């Protein structure tokens, strides 16, 4: 019963969050004084393409249609929701006409997903391990040094770190590529190697920053858990220190960190977007960037909406997996 209520609650929240997000994407452009259709037409004509008025009118109609701008705002909203939620269709990309936005996104998604998943897993595991050790042995020299490093790297924004890394590894000591160019046929050894090679710097910059945050939060957390009565009682019963730290301290602290991970996903996603742009990594971030630069509204709306859905879905996934690892939720 508890699990059903828990899952139902999460699902309702998930749907509502996506609705809020999609509504934001719908509302923001309509609050602005600029009309995207006229802006688009202006952009096309200013690029020197000659179009007779009939053509312009036809284009205006199809653009209005593509943006879903005809009818009342409410009708537009209904159509927008229907299109986005049920078909995932954002129309064709303007910059890469007539490729549908959904195709572009589908190509970019695995890159972002892979980058973020790998770097998050590495940073979460390493950061929590180091944080746990620092929290348990705060007076060791190595702990103090590690903590100082974490304190210094944690507040640095992703892109500054990415910039510093790119300056270092691509100009001063050029061993890693500054932009992403993948070689080899898909799914050959060359290809995979090339993907890893090219993902190295963006992943590293995400890992380093996120690592600092996990170290700091885990340190504080483990210091609290160590003082819990059940840890004290376990020690009184003469359990080995390894057992106490592993099964009693670490297990409890890690569980909290999983929920924190769910809360941090949005921030990390935003950070990875910036990294992708700086390293020209072919993921959602770069897609978003090119959409902005080329004034590709459909692509823009699509990527932003997808970002919201992706983060909400990842959060939901963690929330749904959580009862499997924390018995307190399972039986509440």
């Amino acid at each position, binding site marked *: 019963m508890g699990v059903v209520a828990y899952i139902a609650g999460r699902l309702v929240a998930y749907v509502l969050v996506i609705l809020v997000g999609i509504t934001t994407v719908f509302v923001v452009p309509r609050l602005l004084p600029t009309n995207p259709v006229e802006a688009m037409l202006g952009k096309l004509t200013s690029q020197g393409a000659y179009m007779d008025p009939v053509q312009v009118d036809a284009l205006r109609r199809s653009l209005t249609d593509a943006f879903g701008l005809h009818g009342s705002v409410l009708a537009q909203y209904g159509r927008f929701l229907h299109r986005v939620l049920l078909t995932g269709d954002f129309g064709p990309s303007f910059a890469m006409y007539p490729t549908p936005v959904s195709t572009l996104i589908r190509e970019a998604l695995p890159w972002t997903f892979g980058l973020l998943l790998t770097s998050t897993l590495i940073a979460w595991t390493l950061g929590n391990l180091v944080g746990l050790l620092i929290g348990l042995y705060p007076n060791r020299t190595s702990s103090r040094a590690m903590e100082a490093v974490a304190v210094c790297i944690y507040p640095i924004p992703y892109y500054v770190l990415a910039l510093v890394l790119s300056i270092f590894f691509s100009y001063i000591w050029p061993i890693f590529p500054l932009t992403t160019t993948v070689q080899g046929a898909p799914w050959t050894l060359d290809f995979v190697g090339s993907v890893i090679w090219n993902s190295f710097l963006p992943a590293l910059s995400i890992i380093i920053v996120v690592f600092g945050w996990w170290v700091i939060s885990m340190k504080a957390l483990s210091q609290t858990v160590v003082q*819990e*009565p*059940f840890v*004290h*009682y*376990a*020690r*009184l*019963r*003469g*359990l080995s220190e390894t*057992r106490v730290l592993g*099964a*009693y301290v670490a*297990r*409890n602290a890690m*569980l909290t960190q999983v929920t924190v991970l769910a809360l941090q996903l949005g921030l990390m996603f935003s950070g990875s977007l910036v990294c992708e742009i700086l390293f020209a990594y072919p993921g959602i971030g770069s897609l978003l960037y090119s959409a902005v630069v080329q004034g590709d509204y459909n692509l823009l709306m699509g990527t932003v909406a997808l970002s919201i859905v992706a983060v909400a879905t990842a959060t939901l996934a963690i929330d749904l997996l959580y009862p499997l690892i*924390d*018995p*307190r939720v399972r*039986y*509440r």
Partner: protein
Amino acid sequence: MITLDGVRAGYDTPSGFVAAVDGVSLTLADHEILGVAGESGCGKSTLVRLIYGEFGARTPLRLASGSIAARFPGADGGAPIAVPGERLRAHWWDLVTYVPQGSMSVLNPVMRIGAQFVDALPGRRRGHGMDAEIAAFLAEFDLDSQVLRAYPHQLSGGMRQRVLVAMAAFVHPRVILADEPTTALDVVVQKRILILLRQVQRRQRNSVVIVSHDLGVHYQVADRLAVLYAGKLIEIGPTDPVFARPLHPYTQGLIEAIPRVGDDQPRGGIEGRPPDLAAPPPGCRFHPRCREARALCARAEPALEEKAAGRFAACHFR
């Protein structure tokens, strides 16, 4: 048996050392249930920690003077063992176990009861067959073997407390220390746990120390009762005579405060609160609250003297 001799122990605070237990000498005999009574802040829990050996460099509790020694018949040929102060000896749990208070917070919330049960067992006793043995043992505590697969929050307060008692009793220790084992439980559950504890003690023929502020608990189970006030042992003796005719005015006050069925008189009790241990009053520490205090009480500290056979009290005038 465990002997405390002139034990003075306490905590280092910013304003200096504060003795929570001051000059206490007492012996825990074999096969007895010793009740330790007193208001909060009188040093009851500190006494339990001392007996368990939970003091020294790695803990906040410091033994300033005196000694604590254990002598168990059979084990080590009965030679006295200095109670470990620096760290808990690996097999101390075999000899002395501990039932803490607050069953919700002392069990790991994300670990099954069975695993936590096994955790406390010495390595040689783990392995196959253990589960059956534990389940059989739990049955004596009216606990279904399902409990082993449960998590702490799935059990009621009474069940958790019984699990803790079972954990402490399973290894057949020489001494079980129980610190407020029934506080925060309702009276029916409380009584059940006390009876279980008593049964365990009779069956295993070991010693039990029960700490409780509730004299009713001691009346039900304790063979002897020790009363602490402001870190001092002020009375100790067999339970029934102590209840029938308390020697120390403080003990008398505590007993008078117990509500009785059919008695609608307001309870007397004791005015005021125990003193600040950092600056205890001179002379008898109880004299500011004592109805019978005289001039001498503020000047001289009474020694714990044998006033009748097996009965000791620290009072100038009783």
